[in-house]
């Protein structure tokens, strides 16, 4: 885990990416009780915007390859940790920008906040995402005002109201 974070920090230092933050289940675990997962989801902000709808992740994969880490199934396995790289869209870029800086065993990294995680999971809306939203709302300290602002900004307020009605009856 520590090594994976060091390699991700190198990507930023070498200016292959602008920034990154941990999302998905591992970011959720930062805020709630631990639960089983296998992969480390990482949202990266690329140096260049997508051109004609094409996003080129080759420089990132080339960097990993040169370090001896290869693509296996959907992951890059860095020192035993399967890493999923996602190029950040508009919402995810904001989530990376506002992610919390933390240290893991002395290595600096960034973790997406509960408010942005809820919005990202709501957008994906798979069963496993819904469960994570519930865990975040029930166990984490969520800034509801900030959450509301993000929901409105990205046009997801109505979807969140539907979620609350369906799972909490209000």
């Amino acid at each position, binding site marked *: *885990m*520590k*090594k994976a974070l060091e390699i991700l920090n190198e990507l930023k230092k070498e200016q292959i990416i602008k920034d990154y933050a941990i999302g998905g289940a591992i970011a959720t*675990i*930062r*805020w*709630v*009780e*631990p*639960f*089983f*997962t*296998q992969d480390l989801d990482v949202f990266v902000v690329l140096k260049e915007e997508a051109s004609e709808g094409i996003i080129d992740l080759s420089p990132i994969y080339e960097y990993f390859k040169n370090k001896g880490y290869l693509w296996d199934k959907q992951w890059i*396995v860095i*020192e*035993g*940790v*399967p890493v999923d790289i996602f190029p950040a869209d508009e919402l995810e870029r904001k989530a990376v920008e506002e992610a919390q800086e*933390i240290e*893991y*065993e002395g290595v600096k990294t960034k*973790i997406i906040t509960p408010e942005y995680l809820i919005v990202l999971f709501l957008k994906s809306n798979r069963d496993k995402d819904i469960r994570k939203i519930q865990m975040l709302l*029930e*166990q*984490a300290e969520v800034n509801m005002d900030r959450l509301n602002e993000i929901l409105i900004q990205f046009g997801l307020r109505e979807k969140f109201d539907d979620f609350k009605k369906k799972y909490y009856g209000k």
Partner: protein
Amino acid sequence: MILKRNIMENEIKIIIYDKVYTREELHKMEEEFRKSRAKLSFEEKIKILVDLQKLAFNLSKKKEIIIWKL
């Protein structure tokens, strides 16, 4: 552990040793336990995650679970 169900006035009481709980109280205790685990450090949580991965690996037949190196 002695665990008995005592049905009285439509409310199930659960006895654990010398204490009596309602189902609602047990749920509340479980929720408090979850919240306390949510406050563990990130490092501690990742160690627990790896323990969960080891457990899942041992229980799975196909042995496709990846156990992280810390």
